């Protein structure tokens, strides 16, 4: 098995066995850290971006422990495990307390967009296609 497979398996086990939790970090500090660490680059300013994290869209957001495990698993446990997506965040560069603050802030992202039927320009695109 590859390191990646082991890691994915570990995340899956932990995710399955740990209940959804709330953050213990500080949301205000987390907002600043989210910006300073440029988390918005991929996840948008409200958790909608190339990788959505609003509404706990990712499994690694199930609770704080899983989030920290995800950040550290490659960076500290397997620093040579290359990543194609999420950058590595070792504890040396992103301490646990800052990571907890970021986690707490991410949990405030709730995206509740209107239904397509309530967005006229999107509904019109569908209607136009159906009548073509």
């Amino acid at each position, binding site marked *: 098995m590859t390191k990646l497979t082991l890691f994915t398996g570990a995340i899956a086990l932990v995710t399955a066995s740990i209940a959804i939790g709330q953050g213990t970090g500080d949301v205000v500090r987390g907002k600043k850290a989210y910006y*300073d*660490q*440029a988390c*918005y*680059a*991929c996840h*948008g*300013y*409200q958790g*909608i*971006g*190339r990788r*959505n994290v*609003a509404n706990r869209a990712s499994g690694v957001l199930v609770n704080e422990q899983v989030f920290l495990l995800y950040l550290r698993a490659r*960076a500290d446990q397997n*620093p040579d495990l*290359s*990543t194609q997506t*999420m*950058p*590595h*965040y*070792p504890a*040396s*560069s*992103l301490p646990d307390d800052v990571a907890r603050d970021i986690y707490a802030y991410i949990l405030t992202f709730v*995206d509740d*967009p*209107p*239904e*397509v039927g309530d*967005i*006229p*320009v*999107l*509904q*019109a*695109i*569908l209607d*136009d*296609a*159906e009548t*073509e």
Partner: protein
Amino acid sequence: MKKPHDDGTKISRRQFLGTSAAAGAASIVPRTAGAEPQDAAVAQVVQTKASPPSPEQMAREVGAATPPPVASPAVKRPGSDLMVQVLRDLRVEFVVSNPGSTFEGLQESIVNYGDTPNVMPEFITALHEESAVDMCHGYARSEGKPICALVSGTIGLQHASMAIYQAFLGESPVIVLIGREDFGPRQQHTADDIAGMVRAYTKWDAQPRTLAEALDALQEAYRQATTPPCAPVVVVLDAEIQKQEAGDLKVPAYRPPSIPTISRADATKIADGLVRARNPRLNVGRFRTPEGIDRAIELAELVGASVDTRATSGPMSFPQTHALCGPGNDTAYDYVLGLEQPGAQASITGPHLRTLDDRDIIGIGFGDIRPPVRPERNRSGEYDLVADAEASLPLVIEAAERKLNERDRKSIASRKTTHRQANHDARVAMLRKAVEEKRAGWNGSPVSLARLYAELWSLIKDKDWCLASGTIFSGFHNVQLWEHDRPYSYLGMYPAAALGYCLGSSAGAALAARARDRIVINIQGDGDFNYAPGSIWTAVHHQLPMLTIMHNNRGYHMELMYLQHLAGVRGRGTDRMHIGTTFRDPYIDYAKIAAGYGMKSEGPVSDPDALYAALERGVSTVLGGEPYLIDVLTQPR
């Protein structure tokens, strides 16, 4: 392709080589194979140092001078008038230029010559040579034919070089005219072989020695640019030739290029495959001109083929919502013909840049370090033909027409009906999924890019529009939400992936749009904008129907992500990634920049509920014939 100096004729060397000023020019120019001195006397001159410019020359250079003396007041029929006549006969609509002191002869003819001066071509003022060539590039992608950029000597060409490189990789026909003045005070502005600086990424160049040669060269430039592989070409026009008396010299008759086609035997074989197939398929890439699209539609309808298009990634491809465009009723295709695309059973592609072996290999040298991008030909198809697909299609259509009998035609009619329904259903299913995804973050601030594209679409869908800017950095939302049915619907990405392109190329597309009751949409990245914003002024000055919507994410966002990723890999933290990648302290106010250039503008818009009204104002203004800019603060991607 044959270089202009390989035939032993050498570049132009007139008696001025005996002057000290010309000697200075020669002494600063690196010697190239095409610019060897012809004899010992010339070689001796090359080693001589330049004399300083005369007081008159220097006075002219600093702008406090009286106009330069007219070379010959007796000139009744300037050579540059005939150059303009050549361009007029070729229906070249525009010459885009940042003025320089090497081509006032040609410029004066453009704006004064003939019964309809400054029309066909019209002189378009660019504020940077890179913008000028980008405008030519945008026009060429939109119309499938060239206009001219006019640049001054070595300095203008170097400003233009990035855009020429981009047009070369985009296989776009662009004619670059270079003014050359050996008697000027600035020897840095001239060279024996000016075109050599861009020979690595142009298709053909010439430096004519006489007016008659210059007229021939302009016609040959047009032929070369428009013959596949289409690409930028260069003609160096000496200032003296522009100003000399033409006498009774006539503009030569233009001889259209010969476009390579497949043979009739090949056409018959392909037609046989298409007609015999139970489920034929066309893979359609980018044609040279809109004519290719018409012929592809004709063939698809004739043989009842479903079609794969590249219309959502660039210009001149099959209409995206044509009834036959889509996966069709059955994806088990038994005969796939590629048209400027690979095909399983047959393909007609090229010739493309890979055939230009004498250009980007020897060039100016970087080809020796690493061969430039030259995609290998896809030879996966069984029957791979190197020819121009557009020019070959009439032969295939003619052969197919001959082969079809009444039973075939009934079967094809039935197949087209089933394809039409299947493609419709596939598009609706795709859109149902897409709109669900696009509503995510709909009310977020800064503005969701999906919302921007969706709201803009509702305002332009019934207009004649051209999306001139590449959309990779703003999410490609047009690919799913918009309908790309015209040759110029989407002009595609930056061919060299080099920023500083969208504003100029969009202005070029808008040059084409202005006389065609079309509007141009430019969804403009902020990083790209800041290279050469002067095209804003050009758009205002020439009243171009261009709506620029800033995708303002306040940074070089891709580079931010790359830097962030590497810092993570190195375990050194990501809290300083904004250094060198973002526009902070201060933020840039694009609406003010546009206003400073005289463009109507507004923003920054960060409230999503304010976006639609801003877009309405923008579209309305552009439909009225004026450019407009909306600065929208957006989500990063």
